């Protein structure tokens, strides 16, 4: 029996990840040095883990309200007010989600009518385009370029815009490029969003990991809170990827719409993760800053090494990813990554995993130890030299 005929057409139509096979090769390779991960190498700070254990001990094992624990929502509003300069009401302008991934999905499902067009900058996190498609929207990619440090420009937005665009997704700083926008650039994007009457979904999961300048949230700009859904979470800054905990803040009407979807699909995020998240916000800042400092120094090292190797690599202003241009090898990014893995057991991710804009680039995550970064960069250097000798 051919079960595939039961699968919904829009799921059948979802493009299969072009690098699935690459992921499989990496997963099977023993002792590989992996710069291919998308998460911190630090475990969750102990005091946060301990708060989760304590919650279980105290019998906090029940459902929470659909919006999430009010204590956590209050802590989030304090944190977002202080660090992002936007004030939200804990009662009706915040919803706790299962990571930013769920927040993004809720926003898409709550806002997109079939055929609505959604702009997003690319290269980008792998789920943006599928999230739009699964909500029956039409993805409208906007390219970002190495020459701009992969910042999103209004020129690119204007060139990509078409009638029917309703939503603009932002991810600043960006996975995989580490690109971000300074205040003036964010202001220009905001102006564009107002001009075209777009609602903005702003995924700011890497915002704490901004190494140069100050992160500006688009929601904090005049007139933007009312047309922005601010998406954030605990995975990256607090090293809490496996807890699956995030949140969305926005106008009460939109949060209410997202809550409708959330209550019938997820009901609520794990109470244990919510309790741990309160601890992260209230007492986690020092540990977070310490981790950020370490990423900062490791970034400086790995970016310098890529440039020494001859791969032009812009300085990622945020996130823990370097995005070097490997095109000088004359090999495409996927074959380069596979060749590198097979010859040296170093794993990096081909840029096209993050969209066509990643052609000629690879993503290297520097959230790993100095020993690994040093060894990996030396092996990449030798590999590139051996390629040069062959041609």
């Amino acid at each position: 029996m051919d079960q595939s005929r039961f699968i919904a057409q829009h799921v059948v139509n979802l493009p299969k990840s072009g690098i699935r096979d690459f992921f499989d090769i990496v997963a099977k390779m023993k002792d590989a040095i992996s710069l291919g991960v998308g998460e911190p190498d630090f475990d969750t700070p102990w005091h946060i883990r301990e708060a989760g254990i304590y919650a279980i001990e105290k019998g906090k094992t029940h459902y929470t309200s659909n919006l999430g624990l009010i204590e956590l929502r209050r802590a989030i509003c304090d944190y977002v007010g202080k660090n992002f300069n936007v004030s939200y009401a804990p009662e009706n302008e915040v919803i706790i989600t299962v990571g930013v991934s769920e927040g993004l999905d809720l926003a898409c499902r709550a806002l997109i009518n079939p055929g609505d067009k959604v702009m997003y900058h690319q290269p980008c996190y792998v789920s943006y385009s599928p999230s739009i498609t699964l909500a029956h929207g039409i993805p409208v990619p906007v390219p970002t370029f190495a020459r701009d440090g992969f910042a999103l420009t209004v020129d690119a937005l204007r060139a990509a815009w078409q009638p029917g665009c309703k939503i603009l997704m932002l991810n600043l700083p960006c996975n995989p490029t580490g690109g971000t926008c300074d205040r003036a650039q964010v202001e220009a994007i905001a102006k564009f969003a107002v001009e075209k009457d777009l609602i903005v979904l702003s995924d700011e999961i890497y915002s704490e990991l901004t190494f140069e300048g100050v992160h500006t949230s688009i929601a904090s700009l005049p007139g933007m809170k009312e047309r922005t859904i601010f998406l954030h979470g605990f995975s990256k800054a607090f090293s809490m990827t496996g807890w699956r905990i995030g949140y969305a803040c926005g106008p009460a009407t939109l949060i209410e719409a997202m809550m409708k979807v959330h209550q019938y699909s997820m009901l609520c995020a794990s109470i244990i993760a919510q309790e741990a998240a309160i601890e992260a916000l209230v007492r986690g800042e020092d540990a977070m800053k310490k981790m950020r400092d370490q990423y900062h120094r490791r970034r400086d090292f790995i970016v310098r090494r890529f440039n020494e190797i001859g791969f032009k690599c812009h300085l990622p202003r945020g996130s823990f990813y370097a995005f070097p241009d490997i095109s000088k090898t004359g090999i495409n990014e996927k074959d380069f990554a596979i060749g590198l893995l097979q010859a040296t057991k170093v794993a990096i991710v081909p840029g096209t995993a993050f969209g066509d804009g990643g052609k000629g680039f690879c993503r290297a995550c520097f959230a790993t130890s100095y020993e690994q970064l040093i060894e990996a960069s030396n092996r990449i250097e030798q590999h590139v030299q051996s390629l040069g000798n062959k041609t």
Partner: protein
Amino acid sequence: MNPIIKLLLEGGSLTTSQMAQVLKLSEADVNRQIEELKQQRVLLGFRPVLNLSHEDSGVVRAVIEVRITPERGGGFNRLAERISKFDEVESCFLMSGGYDLLVFVTGASLQKVAAFVSEKLSTIEGVLSTATHFMLRSYKEHGFLLGGKVEETERLKVAP
């Protein structure tokens, strides 16, 4: 903070040649800077962190609370420095609260530590009293957990 110190603190067991690579210095430069830090007495030295709970380590450790008489002009310093000079003394701190010095002592046996306390420490002019606590078991040494197996946390090798 000096970048070499930062690297020593967070880099674990990097060799000087690895440190040189990270800091974009020559290995000789790294060695010279480490030497300078030692001369400035910023960096006092390196020691291995051992798990002394193994039975055959033959080390007895104790913490001693010491009350001493402060002196005009020098306060607690002269006596504290004098006590610190004994080989048995691993560390010595001036404390607030019910006693003055907290002294960490090691010895080959319980008798040897006891002898140090009764014959050397408490007989020093100016030492008013001592309270000795023997350590029974260590759970964490200089940031290293001792209990159980080393827990390897698993990260996926590749993730978006």
